[in-house]
């Protein structure tokens, strides 16, 4: 039993790290990419000085520094695993310094597991982990000082330093040290003096920060580090985390450390470990937001232009949120599969084709991708800008800046494109790309020959019009009329009509695709054409004048039979005909 427990004590931290690594590497990789795209870490001294100019800024700097590596999900998963393991190691060692009690070893996993749960929410940032770790490092060092006066001095000196480095984490450090001092033998006067000094110093730190930085609300200065993406919100998770960092080690003051039998100690330890593993697994599982991970995955595939991966993912499980569906539709269109296959997947109306603008960083970012590939370069630029400006923590976005550089390059706005490229040259992972794009500036021929930018230059509008969220079909129509070989504009235009069930406009726009020379009329168009024909003609299968395949005709007959004769056609048709346009038309 003792051996088993000893083995558990040695392996549990490693297993914990491995679990975190696998979780973020396999289950949550796109959350990591999501974090990376909504920040812009610059390797300039000015960025460093600006970031550390507020309490907790150093933790923010470290957090944003590591987050740039989240561009590579396994690397990001490894970083988070190391950080959470460090957190556990620190808690464990602080607890041991307070009182060695092997049975309660696994309690040291509570704070890191709690932070893991927090990180399941995409708005909790890596900076917070650094804030907590810095607080714990300071607290652990406190235990190595034997001399009382030196210890007191250490506490009082560390409070302002730690506050500036890690923000509110200073609270559990200061409280923890003060409580430990109270638990030691010594004069009450000294303890009272220390407590008063700590309280005054903490208050002094917060008030001084408000005096130096009057442009921040007081509460934000107390928390300091950007734990959460929305600085106006102060989620209780932050306070609970601090409390756990304080209470878990301090609990060793009161928990029994000597068991009569070693076997009992080992058994307690094993049972506690087991209970915590089960509880942690359960808590992580219920806090895992697979639906958000799904959207982030589709967004990532679109960002990286991995169209086949988006389609494969949809083949495994058809997406249902408008943003995921919009990404899938873009992937299908870029792969030349949209008009044949889009109704094989769940469609949720025009919002799943081109989502409506919202003052939101995620929606704008994704929708901007669609506009970009369609050749609405100004709109794509606007959405990239709006996405970045929507970030509630006022950060900048590397992905947005990249898109701003691209769209300005395509539009021939070279001076401002250069500005964005110069900024990206100050990053670790976008520098190479920025250097590459720099060589295109002012080189019209090179841009026109570029497979992506050159094509988009051909696609973009030659005449001006005003964007209209309410008339996306008109916008697509204008683009198409200027270039009848712009297949994406044509397919989006017709898809828009099909999704809005505007069959009159579908018939009006359908002939515009003549120049695209399809090898066959796309399946969804065939389904729409024969359906429209059937509304005004008897025996449409025989009389339909459009090139509708026999397979579609047969399927229509089967569909009609069930639709007309079944008491619950929606359910019955779902099995074999849910991938048809007719099913969408009738039941979506």
């Amino acid at each position, binding site marked *: 039993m003792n051996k088993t427990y000893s083995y558990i004590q040695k392996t549990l931290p490693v297993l914990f790290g491995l679990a975190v690594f696998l979780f973020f590497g396999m289950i949550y990789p796109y959350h990591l990419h999501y974090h990376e795209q909504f920040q812009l870490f610059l390797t300039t001294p*000015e960025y460093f000085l600006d970031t550390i100019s507020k309490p907790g800024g150093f933790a923010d700097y470290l957090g944003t520094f590591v987050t740039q590596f989240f561009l590579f999900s396994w690397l990001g998963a490894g970083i988070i695993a190391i950080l959470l393991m460090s957190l556990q190691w620190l808690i464990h060692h602080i607890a041991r310094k307070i009182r060695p009690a092997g049975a309660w070893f696994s309690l040291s996993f509570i704070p890191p597991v709690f932070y893991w749960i927090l990180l399941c929410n995409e708005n909790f940032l890596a900076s917070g982990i650094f804030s907590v770790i810095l607080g714990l490092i300071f607290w652990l060092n406190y235990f190595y000082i034997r001399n009382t006066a030196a210890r007191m001095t250490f506490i009082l000196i560390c409070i302002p330093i730690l506050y500036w480095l890690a923000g509110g984490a200073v609270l559990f450090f200061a409280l923890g040290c003060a409580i430990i001092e109270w638990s030691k033998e010594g004069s009450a006067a000294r303890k009272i003096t220390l407590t008063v000094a700590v309280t005054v110093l903490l208050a002094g730190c917060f008030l001084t920060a408000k005096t130096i930085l009057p442009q921040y609300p007081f509460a934000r200065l107390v928390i300091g580090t950007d734990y959460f993406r929305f600085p106006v919100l102060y989620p209780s998770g932050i306070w609970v985390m601090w409390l756990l960092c304080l209470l878990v080690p301090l609990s060793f003051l009161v928990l029994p450390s000597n068991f009569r039998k070693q076997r009992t100690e080992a058994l307690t330890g094993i049972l506690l470990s087991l209970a915590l593993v089960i509880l942690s697994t359960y808590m992580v599982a219920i806090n895992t937001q697979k639906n958000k991970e799904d959207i982030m995955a589709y967004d990532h595939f679109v960002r990286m232009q991995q169209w086949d991966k988006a389609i494969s993912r949809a083949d495994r499980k058809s997406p249902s949120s408008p943003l995921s569906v919009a990404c899938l539709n873009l992937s299908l269109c870029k792969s030349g599969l949209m008009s044949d296959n889009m109704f094989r997947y769940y469609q949720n109306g025009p919002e799943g084709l081109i989502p409506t603008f919202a003052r939101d960083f995620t929606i704008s970012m994704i929708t901007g991708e669609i506009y970009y590939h369609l050749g609405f370069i*100004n709109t794509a630029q606007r959405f990239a800008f709006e996405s970045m400006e929507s970030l509630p923590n006022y950060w900048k976005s590397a992905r947005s800046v990249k898109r701003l550089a691209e769209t300005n390059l395509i539009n021939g706005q070279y001076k401002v494109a250069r500005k964005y490229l110069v900024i990206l040259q100050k990053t670790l992972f976008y520098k190479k790309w920025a250097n590459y794009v720099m060589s295109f500036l002012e080189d019209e021929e090179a841009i026109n020959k570029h497979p992506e930018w050159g094509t988009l230059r051909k696609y973009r509008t030659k005449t*001006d019009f005003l964007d209209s969220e309410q008339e996306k079909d008109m916008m697509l129509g204008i683009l198409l009329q200027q270039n009848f070989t712009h297949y994406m504009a044509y397919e989006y235009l017709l898809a828009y009509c099909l999704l809005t069930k505007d069959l009159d406009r579908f018939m009006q726009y359908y002939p515009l695709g003549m120049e695209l020379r399809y090898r066959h009329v796309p399946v969804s168009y065939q389904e729409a054409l024969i359906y429209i024909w059937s509304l005004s003609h008897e025996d449409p299968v025989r009389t339909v004048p459009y090139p509708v395949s026999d397979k579609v005709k047969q399927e229509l007959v089967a569909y009609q039979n069930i639709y007309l004769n079944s008491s619950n056609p929606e359910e019955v048709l779902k099995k074999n005909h849910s991938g048809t346009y007719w099913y969408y038309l009738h039941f979506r």
Partner: protein
Amino acid sequence: MAWTGCKKGVANADLSDTLPPVFPDYSGVTIPVNITPLDFQMTDNATKMFVKVEGARSGLLETGNRKSAAFKLTRWKKILEENAGDSLSVTVYAKYKDKGWIQYLPFTLYVNPVPVNRYLVYRLIAPGYEVYSKMGIYQRDLSSFKEIPLLENTLIPGNCMNCHSFTGNNPDNMSLHIRGELGGTILKQGEDIEILNTKTKETIGNCVYPYWHPTGDYVVYSVNKTIQVFHAIQDERVEVIDLASDIVVYHPESKKVITSELLETNDFETFPSFSPDGKTLYFSSSAFQKIPEDYKEIRYNLCAIAFDPETMTFGDHVDTLVNAAAMGKSISYARPSPDGKYIMFTLSDYGNFSIWHKEADLWLYNLKDGSLREMKEVNSDDVESYHSWSSEGTWFVFSSRRLDGLYTRPFFACINEEGKISKPFLLPQKRPLEFYNMSFFSYNVPEFVTGLVDWDLKKVEKMLTGGKRDSIEYLNIQNN
């Protein structure tokens, strides 16, 4: 000193017959005697630079390092004072890996003995569309590099602020709008601060685009119903259009807005300002057009109406000073000079939100003889838009997008008694190339003030977050 080693090299420098490739372009500019050092940087691949500044009367400054020409403030001040009314000659030496040291042709800085107002207040905001991130109102000491935030939206997250205005460059009186959840108009008069809800049931919107009466007893605003639309074509971005707009004058003492039927018509009236004597109200006015169909047909003329501050009444007619519509053009931001000689305005092809109009330029209307002139000396191929006068009437500042076509930067120039205008210079910064390249902010609404705007920020924060907003009353003079 760091550059003593350079001196040996520059003695043997090869002579170039061109001006040095530096940023910002300061060659031939006129600067006020109290301006902060004009630090600059090489824009090419020079590995070192050395700069010699010689006063036409006296004084010599030497500086240089690898990154920038950075001048010591005290020495810079001294050489400017010694050469006020004369000029400085700036010689740049640059070292290149392949060419060694090169001595470029010297350029001249003319020192105007008239000091500019010491502070410049502006808004820093990303040149976005509908959404805004971090922004703030800042005051920059033009005699140093110090920039002090007046109000940032870190204090009131998610809110926007704009349209700061002062009584004739006096920092004691200020009007400032907050938009968003904590919206309201902050009115500062001395140490008194109040936050107003400027929407009345009779007016079409909140008060915007303020201009103080020279006595400080009134603030004229326009009330606008505005929309933003977005262009699809590559060279255009945004259009800000008024669906309706009128002009009202606010009297802080009585908390009343007054207006005239002549300022509250079906036409569009906007961007008001008072003459230096306070007896005339200038504004832009356009005939009504259907929006958005005919937005390109909106053309504003420069108009004027008499205003009597004693009786709080308006004249019985509106004069059209400049019929821009007849020229196929449109006028915004009429700003009379403090001496009453000129009105400076922005001329664009249509509409009033000229910052998004590449063709927008500054023009000058001579109030004495009614003549008009384009300010070619300061205009560029890109946007010139908002502008304001320093209190002595010699210096003015204006917004321009000439550097990169998007990010608005403040430029300064002066006009002499004969109406001659100097070549403008960019707001000086330390290591300006990096500064402007790396900045995500535009400088909006640059306004001079003679001193630092001093207010109790804690009180402002409390008032803003407290939510209380004082209402104002509406009074149509002609109807009473």
